[in-house]
């Protein structure tokens, strides 16, 4: 897993590059993301588009970050996900809670 973080203004753009997002790497990702929030960055764009597979531990990272950012009135946006993670979020309706950027917006953010 590779985590690439760039900052622009008050927003952190975070790209987590891994094929599988599960118990092997979820904790590391969560700690990194929480650190960013604790350092006062409350706006986040998460690019998880490289993930082909996400399990419940990966899902719980997204949920924790969403809750943490909501609690400080911040803003979390996600780049489009690949098929399986999208299905996972959709089937439990979690997609209704999250804000997704479209592909074009995401490409722009990735340039930072």
């Amino acid at each position, binding site marked *: 897993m590779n985590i690439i973080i760039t900052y622009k203004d008050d927003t952190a753009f975070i790209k987590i590059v891994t094929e599988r997002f*599960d*118990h092997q790497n979820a904790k590391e990702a969560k700690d990194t993301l929480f650190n960013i929030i604790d350092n006062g960055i409350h706006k986040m764009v998460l690019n998880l588009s490289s993930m082909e*597979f*996400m*399990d*419940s*531990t990966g*899902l*719980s990272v997204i*949920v*924790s970050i*969403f*809750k943490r950012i909501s609690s400080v009135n911040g803003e979390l946006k996600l780049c489009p996900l690949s098929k*399986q993670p999208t*299905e*996972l979020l959709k*089937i*439990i*309706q*979690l997609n*209704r*809670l999250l804000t997704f950027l479209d592909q074009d917006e995401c490409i722009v953010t990735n340039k930072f």
Partner: protein
Amino acid sequence: MKAVILSGGQGTRVRPLTYIVPKPMIPIVERPLISYIFKLLKKHNFSQVIVTVSYKADMLEDHYQNGEEQGMQIAYSLEGSVKNGKIVSKGLGSAGGLKKVQKFADFFTEPFLVICGDALIDLDLTKAMEFHKSHDGVATVICKEVPKEDVYKYGVVVTSENGLIESFQEKPKVEDAKSNIINTGIYIFDPIVLDYIPDNKEFDIGGDLLPLLSELNLPYYAKVPDFQWIDVGSIADFYKANMLLLEKKIKDIKPYGKEIQPNVWVGINCKIDFDSIEIEGPVYIGNSVKIEDGVKIIGPTMIGSGCLIEENVILNQSILFSYTKIHRGLKFSNKIITSKYIVNPDGSFIDVDETNMHFLVEDRRKCYCKITPEEIEILEILQSIYSL
């Protein structure tokens, strides 16, 4: 009379359910699909039936055995072989399967019926057999009239005025279709046609055998009776068939069990306080089901035997396979749920084992007692979504 049920397919379009059971055994309101076909065959005095099997053949054979309980004699013809204890399928095509049966012991000595194992039908088979015997053809193709806009999904049949089949069009464009009469995959054959099927070769009835008969100038006829034909070829079809059956829209078939109030069927040994739950029929509840207080069930919904629905769950137009446990407070709409998969009617699904989502649904017989703080966090957030 003799019949063959063609059930050798892999059922790829009905995945992931066919990862659990072979396609002919997919449950339509708790009865395997093929049971409905056996019942129809029995009603029309078919007493000797051969089922061509392949994928998960053991499950089917263990269930129906020699056919005594179905009131007929049932034999099986495996399309494949057993290697290292596992069945390795070798598809022969629908016609190749018939040839294999005939080569073994000359089973077919009189006109016989060929029917697919994946449709719910109420066809008058007696009349169909009589029709076959009344004409000079070597085969009868049972056809159905469909709306013109649907022809692209099927093999279209072109006939002369007296029903003689002149040609076929395989899945034509709507504008190219020469008729709206389609082949249902139900046939009656004279044994003579088997002579024209090559040995040990993949050979299809619709694609190879019938065109060959035409080429050889052997006449065969279409019969277009008015009957119900519900194909269960895909997950969407499977979902729809269950819904239709619950809505009593399938002729002669009703859910099994006691109808405790209009459109609510409940099996035996259930633990449900009907004053503490809300039910909008049609709803089928199997045997030994436990439903906790505060649950809301909106029909058509079918809950398989042995399920556990924990408190405050909402189920809307969904199908639960047997022994599924649903964690408290969850809400599912338009889903097919097993202890291993959560499936949408369009066929997309998540694998509960692989994604480790047992805190949502689980096999009731397993004890999944420990829920992690992370999982509690997900469950809490789901609750907040439901109240949006």
